[in-house]
C-alpha cells in the first residue's frame, strides 16, 4: 500500500511569488491534515479536511494560504503571495474515517522563500 506522498519535495521561490503544494493521501483515507514546521519551532496544525470539506482551518496563518481538496482525494495548499516567514516544511497526513486510527505522514515539502 502506497503511503502519503507530497510534491514537490523542495521548492525555492522569491518573495511575492505563488507556490502550490500537493498531497496525495493513502487511498480510502477520508481525513487529510496539513501541518507546518518553521525552522526551530514545533510542527503546527494548519487545517483538516474530511473528504472534500474543511473540518477545521483554525491553524491557517492568514488569507494568503488556500487549501482545497476537490473530489475528496488529493489536496493542494497554495501560498499567494509568499512571504519570507512562510519558509518551512509542510507536512501532510491522512487518517481513516474512524477517529481511533492514527495519522500517517508524508515526507513533507521544504519551502524556501528568498
Amino acid at each position, binding site marked *: 500500500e502506497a503511503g502519503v506522498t507530497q510534491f514537490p519535495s523542495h521548492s525555492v521561490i522569491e518573495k511575492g511569488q505563488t507556490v502550490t503544494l500537493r498531497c496525495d493521501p493513502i487511498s480510502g483515507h477520508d481525513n487529510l491534515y496539513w501541518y507546518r514546521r518553521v525552522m526551530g519551532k514545533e*510542527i503546527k496544525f494548519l487545517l483538516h479536511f474530511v473528504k472534500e470539506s474543511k473540518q477545521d482551518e483554525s491553524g491557517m496563518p492568514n488569507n494568503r494560504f488556500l487549501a482545497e481538496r476537490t473530489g475528496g482525494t488529493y489536496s493542494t495548499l497554495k501560498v499567494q503571495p509568499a512571504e519570507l516567514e512562510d519558509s518551512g516544511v509542510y507536512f501532510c*497526513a491522512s487518517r481513516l474515517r474512524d477517529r481511533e486510527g492514527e*495519522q500517517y*505522514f508524508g515526507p*513533507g515539502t521544504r519551502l524556501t522563500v528568498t
Partner: protein
Amino acid sequence: ELKVEQNPLFLSMQEGKNYTIYCNYSTTSDRLYWYRQDPGKSLESLFVLLSNGAVKQEGRLMASLDTKARLSTLHITAAVHDLSATYFCAVAPPWRGGSEKLVFGKGTKLTVNP
C-alpha cells in the same frame, strides 16, 4: 490551550548507553503519540499510548504514559547507531467531535556515536 514540552532537544549519546526523552503536556489528552523522523523522510509512528500507565516496547525503545502527571517518556536501552533520528511526541486533545489536530513537541534530535 494544549502545550507540549519535550526535552532534551538535542541528545548525543554513545552506543550501548541508556537514556530517556521526556514529554510533558499541559492539559487533558485522549492519546499520545511518539514519532521518529529520519532526514528527508516521513514521520514514522512508533507508539500510540491511550491510557494511564500504558507501556509499549519495540526493540530498544520503550514508551510509557502517566496521565496524572501529564508525562510520557521514551526510554532508549543500549543505544545503537541506527536509532539516530529526530523523535517527536504529539498529543491529541480530548475528542469533542471535531478535528484530531495533533500538538507536537519541538522534537529531540538523537545522535548515537560509535
